């Protein structure tokens, strides 16, 4: 069993044609339905649906409050190492980019963890570049063991692992897995992943499923918007989520919406996702998958981020540094430029003002 078979089923569809042919009546019919099929979801992603964004937003807001309450979950990322053997055309950590790479030792990891925990963060996401030499599973495991006293829950966003390795990390104290396919279009995937183990499309595509089989509680997936037509990528990522939801009932699933941003190197996005497009994606996700979390990262600016909140967002990263050692050390290189530089205190205050309770604590290791 693999999502790849599903991907192949939908790959043959002429999605451009579906998007082009959708009309106002289709959108109205979809919005009158209780629960949506994948065909309905395509209608909501189509250009004509942009005329119905307000109506979609009203329903999305209502469904989000009903399913998740007037609350937003907060977490923070911790970068362990930016050593990477992949050559991904769009990424600042690309093996070909020359900058001083850094890897935290266990003592430094503990210090960073302590600094983050002091701010009040309870949920931590740890990240590394892909290098089995510099950041092997044993190193990540040690990091988790060093950090778990400071946090009530730890997620990983690292290179794809085998099922047994995920099990090992769960045993060490990991609860959740974040892994982005980057681009679902298999041909483009092959073009933008020039060299390195990441070239293996299927191994990455099946990683969330291996994580689910290993017993992860939470899985967060998503495309990197900008690498292919965003409408198609939004479609495949949601279908992927639905596949996991159907096959692994107990998973808490979430989708993320990273957009390509400027970084070291010269790669330019193929498809530009405007703010309006981003709104449409969030709304379509929410209406199609009412029980799935939607996570917004620090990559978006303050003003936009605040306005996106009521549309279906359930999770925000706060106090984010995307540099290795960024919480305790100076002179670090960021993976990407961050737009929202506010502190946790400010974000909490803002959420309360907007009518949302900030939730920091959402799990006890059992």
């Amino acid at each position: 069993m693999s999502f790849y078979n599903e991907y192949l089923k939908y790959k043959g569809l002429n999605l451009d044609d579906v998007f082009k042919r959708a009309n106002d009546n289709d959108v109205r019919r979809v919005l009158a339905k209780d629960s949506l099929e994948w065909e309905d979801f395509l209608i909501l992603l189509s250009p004509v649906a942009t005329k119905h964004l307000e109506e979609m937003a009203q329903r999305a807001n209502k469904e989000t409050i009903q399913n998740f309450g007037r609350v937003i979950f907060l977490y923070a990322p911790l970068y362990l190492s930016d050593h990477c053997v992949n050559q991904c055309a769009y990424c600042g950590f690309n093996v070909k980019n020359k900058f001083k790479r850094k890897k935290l030792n266990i003592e430094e990891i503990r210090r960073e963890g302590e600094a983050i925990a002091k701010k009040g963060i309870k949920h931590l996401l740890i990240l590394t570049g892909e290098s089995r030499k510099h950041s092997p599973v044993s190193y990540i495991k040690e990091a988790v063991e060093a950090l778990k006293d400071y946090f009530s829950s730890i997620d990983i966003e690292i290179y794809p692992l085998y099922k047994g390795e995920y099990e090992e990390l769960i045993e060490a104290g990991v609860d959740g897995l974040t892994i982005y396919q980057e681009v679902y279009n298999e041909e483009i995937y092959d073009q933008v992943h020039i060299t390195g183990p990441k070239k293996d499309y299927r191994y990455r595509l099946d990683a969330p499923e291996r994580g689910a089989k290993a017993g992860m509680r939470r899985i967060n997936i998503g495309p990197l918007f900008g690498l292919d037509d965003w409408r198609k990528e939004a479609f495949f990522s949601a279908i992927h989520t639905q596949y996991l939801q159907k096959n692994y009932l107990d998973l808490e699933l979430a989708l993320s919406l990273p957009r390509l941003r400027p970084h070291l190197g010269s790669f330019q996005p193929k498809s530009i996702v405007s703010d309006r497009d981003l709104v449409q994606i969030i709304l379509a996700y929410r209406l199609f998958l009412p029980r799935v979390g939607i996570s917004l990262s620090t990559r978006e600016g303050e003003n936009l981020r605040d306005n996106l909140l009521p549309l279906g967002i359930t999770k925000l990263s706060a106090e984010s540094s995307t540099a290795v050692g960024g919480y305790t050390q100076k002179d670090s290189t960021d993976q990407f430029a961050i737009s929202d530089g506010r502190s946790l205190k400010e974000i909490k205050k803002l959420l309360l003002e907007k009518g949302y309770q900030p939730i920091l604590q959402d799990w006890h290791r059992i």
Partner: protein
Amino acid sequence: MKKDSLVIGGVKLESRLLTGTGKFPRKDIIKDTIEASGSQVVTMALRRVDFDSPKENILNYIPKGCILLPNTSGARTAEEAVRIARIAKAAGCGNWIKIEVISDNKYLMPDNQETIKATEILAKEGFVVLPYVSPDLMVAKRLEEVGAGAVMPLGAPIGSNRGLKTKEMIRILIDEIEVPIIVDAGIGKPSQAAEAMEMGADAVLVNTAIATAQDPIGMGRAFAKAVQAGRMGYLAGSGPVRDYAKASSPLTGFLEGIES
């Protein structure tokens, strides 16, 4: 009039409205809302209780004197529910526990079999166990047998505000089960709470409908009255309900002529 007291785990309760602490727009409104609702038993997800920070700790927003009913939200198996219950007890949340074993995150349907297992273990350990289940007579009987303090059937999926969709199944539990029946989940409006009470439920648990209302305090108060009204209606004994009018030309009127 029937004797009217609700006793769970040896505790006599005045209020038949249990409330929750999830989904509120801010913590500082929770206390006033619970007070307005008159609720004496308050549930909270143990996963959300931050024991390290007095400001963040949800327990500090629950009025003094309320019975804490930690729930095992997040448990996927009986074993996990049992572990969460033990953590709650060790952390000083008392010995009441609401079992939520949910292995389906789309509809949030409870896993009845795992719930029975967890109930049995925890009841033996001295917990007052309130299991959240899909309404099923045999499951409720088993729960009673293994020592549940009450049975909490869902009216509709959690958070759906759809009302008493499982009414006929709950009615059977009310008739056949000795321990209190508390309708949990799905109640979206005060009128639906009244409906559950009117048909003889011992209590209701309401969270989403209160927490996500425009005015949670006002909604808490409204639910308090609805629950009382429904209970009073039940005790007063509703008249029989006919779904047909009394026929003006009775079909059996001829019998009177024959028999006289």
